[in-house]
C-alpha cells in the first residue's frame, strides 16, 4: 500500500539534512510552563520521507514549526542543511525559510486576493526574481501539479484538492531543501488526500526531502520513516525495511 521509500538509495542522500540535538520548547503560560517539546534528538537524511505521528498535544506541530524555522527552540541545537538555526535572528530565520523550506498547511493557506499564479510566485517575489522569469517558473509548477490551465483563477474558484495542489506548487517554487506539511490531507476527502500523497511520493522519488504530520496511518504509510511522539518526546521510530 505504501509507496516504496527512495531514501538511502543514492550515495548523495547519506548526508544529514536535519539534525536536532536535545531540543526543548517550553511555553510560559503565566506562572505555569508547558513543555511542548522535552528533549528531542533526531536526524533526517537528504531525500528522506518522514511522517510524524502521535496523539493530540504530543508536540507534532511544535516540532514541525521548529523544523520550519517559524520558531526557535528554548534549548538545544538545530542544524538545517549545515546552517545552525537555533540562535538566528528573526531576519535570519526568514531568510532560511525563504531559501530552504517549503510549507504545506492543512487549510491550504493561499492568499485569496491573488491568482493561482501569483500565489505560486510569492516565494520568488520575496527572493527578488524578475517578473517574467518568475511567471515562467510558476507556469511550469502549475503544470507539474496538473493545474496548468488554472493559472488565472482565484483560490476560491478551486476545489480543496486543487487548492492544496497549488499550495504544493507554491512550496516548491524556491526549490526548498525540505518540504514540511502539517496534516496536508486533514481537510480533504480520502480520495483527494490520496492524490496529494501520490504527489508527495512522486516528489520524494525525485529526491525531495519531506516531513509531514498526520494522524492517519494510511497517510503515514507513504513515508519511509514514522516517528511517534508522546508528551513532547520521541516515543519510537519505525523505518521501512
Amino acid at each position: 500500500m505504501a509507496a516504496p521509500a527512495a531514501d538511502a538509495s543514492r550515495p548523495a542522500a547519506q548526508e544529514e539534512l536535519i539534525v536536532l540535538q536535545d531540543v526543548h520548547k517550553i511555553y510560559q503560560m503565566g506562572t505555569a510552563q508547558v513543555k511542548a517539546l522535552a528533549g528531542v534528538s533526531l536526524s533526517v537524511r537528504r531525500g528522506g520521507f518522514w511522517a510524524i505521528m502521535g496523539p493530540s498535544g504530543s508536540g507534532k506541530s511544535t516540532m514541525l514549526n521548529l523544523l520550519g524555522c517559524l520558531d526557535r527552540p528554548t534549548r538545544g541545537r538545530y542544524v538545517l542543511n549545515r546552517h545552525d538555526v537555533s540562535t538566528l535572528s528573526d531576519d535570519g530565520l526568514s531568510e532560511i525559510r525563504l531559501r530552504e523550506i517549503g510549507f504545506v498547511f492543512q487549510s491550504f493557506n493561499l492568499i485569496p486576493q491573488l491568482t493561482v499564479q501569483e500565489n505560486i510566485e510569492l516565494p520568488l517575489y520575496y527572493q527578488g526574481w524578475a517578473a517574467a522569469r518568475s511567471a515562467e517558473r510558476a507556469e511550469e509548477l502549475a503544470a507539474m501539479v496538473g493545474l496548468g490551465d488554472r493559472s488565472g483563477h482565484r483560490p476560491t474558484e478551486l476545489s480543496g484538492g486543487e487548492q492544496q495542489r497549488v499550495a504544493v506548487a507554491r512550496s516548491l517554487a524556491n526549490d526548498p531543501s525540505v518540504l514540511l506539511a502539517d496534516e496536508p490531507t486533514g481537510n480533504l476527502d480520502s480520495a483527494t488526500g490520496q492524490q496529494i500523497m501520490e504527489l508527495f511520493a512522486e516528489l520524494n522519488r525525485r529526491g525531495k526531502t519531506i516531513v509531514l504530520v498526520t494522524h492517519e496511518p494510511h497517510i503515514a504509510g507513504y513515508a519511509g520513516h514514522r516517528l511517534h511522539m508522546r508528551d513532547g518526546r520521541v516515543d519510537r521510530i519505525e523505518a521501512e525495511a
Partner: protein
Amino acid sequence: MHRSRAIRNIRLGIKNLMLHKLRSMLTVLGVVFGVGSVIAMLAVGEGASREALEQIRKLGSNNIILSALKPVEDEQTSGRTAFMSMYGLLYEDEQRIRQTMPAVVRAVPVKHVRKEGRLGERALELRVMGTTADWFAVVNRPVLAGRKLTQSDLDGQAAVCVLTEYGTRRLLATEHTIGQSLRIGGDYYEVIGIVQSEQSSGSIQTPDQEVDAYIPLNVAQARYGDISMRRSAGSQEMEMVELHMILVQVRSSDEVEPTADAIQSMLKRFHKKEDYRISVPLALLRQAEATKRTFNIVLGSIAGISLLVGGIGIMNIMLASVTERTREIGIRRAIGAKQRQIIGQFLIETIVLSTVGGLIGIAIGMMIPWLVTRLAGMPTIVPAYGIVLSLCISVGVGIVFGLYPAVRAAKMDPIVALRHE
C-alpha cells in the same frame, strides 16, 4: 527590477483597497478636507500678499502720504459760527519735514483745487494739482507724450500743465494737443505732457487720480490763493487750506515707520487740531500680512484637525485591515517575508490611500479659492509649491499613521498568525 517591484507593491496596495471601495473612500475624507484646507489657505494667503505687493507698487513702499483733513468740530459748527474754517497742512510743515528729517529724500507739497477744464467744445471737471517737479519722482508714472514739470517751470512760474491719459481722452486731446492752450477756470495753460493715470482699485487710494492736471505750485498759489469758497445748501462756506497733500519719500523702507512717527509728533506740536492724516503704504502690507496670518491660523487649524482626524481614521482602518489579514501576514512570513517587507506592504497601502485623498483634496482645494474669488472678490493664487507641499503632507500622513499598524502586522508571531481564523 527594483522599480517593477515597487509598481507591483503599489498595484497590490490598490487592489487591496479596491476590495473595500466605500470604506477606503470614507477613510480618506479627513485627508481630503485637510489637504483642501491647506491649498485654500495657501491660495488665499498668496493672493492677499500678491495684492498687498501690488498696492505697495502703486503707492511706493518708501512713501508716506500726508493729507489735509477737515476736523470734525469744524464740520459741525461750520454753518453757524465759523466764518471761515482753517485747516490742513502748512507750507512750513513741508519745509520742516524736508529740513529736519535726514531720512527724508523728498517732500512734495500739493495744493489742489477743483476747476473745469475746457478744450474746444469739451469740458471736464479737473483736480488741478499745484505741485513741484518732485511729484513725478515720487509718483512715478510713465510719460506718454511731451514732458513732466521741471524746476525751471517753477522758477519761471510758467503757465503749463501736464494732463493724464484719462483727462486727455475725455477732452478729446491727442499728442498734437501738446503746445496748445487748455483753459482751466478763467486761465490758460500750455499743455506740455501726458502721463499715464493709475486707476485706484478696491480699498487702495493712490495719491494721483485720473482727473488730475498738474501745474507748478507757485502758479497755483498765485492764481487761486489759499482761500476757497464752497457753496452748499444755500450757505456759503470759506475754507483756508495751505497744502492739501504732502508726499514724503524716505531713504529706505526700514526708516518709513520711524519717520512717520516723527512726522506725527512734529505735526502734533504745530497743529492745534487733528486736521491731517498720515497714511503709510507699508502699513497696508503689515495689515495684509496680519490678515493673512489670521486666515492661516483659522485654515491651518482646520487643516491640522482634519489631517489628524483623517490620519487617525486611516490608522483605525489599517488596524482593522491588519486584523482581517492576519492569516495573509502569517502566510507571507512563513514563506520567508521579512518584517520590513510586511511593514513596506502595509505602509505602501496607507500611502496610496492618503495620496489618493491628497489628490482629491488638491482638486477640491483648488475649487475653494476659485469660489472665494468669485463670491467674495478676494484675489487668490494657488502656488505650485502648495501642490507639492500638499502631496508631501499626504504621504507624510500615510507614513505617520500607517507605521503603527504596519509594525504591528510585522511583529505578529507567524505561528499565531497562521492559526488565526
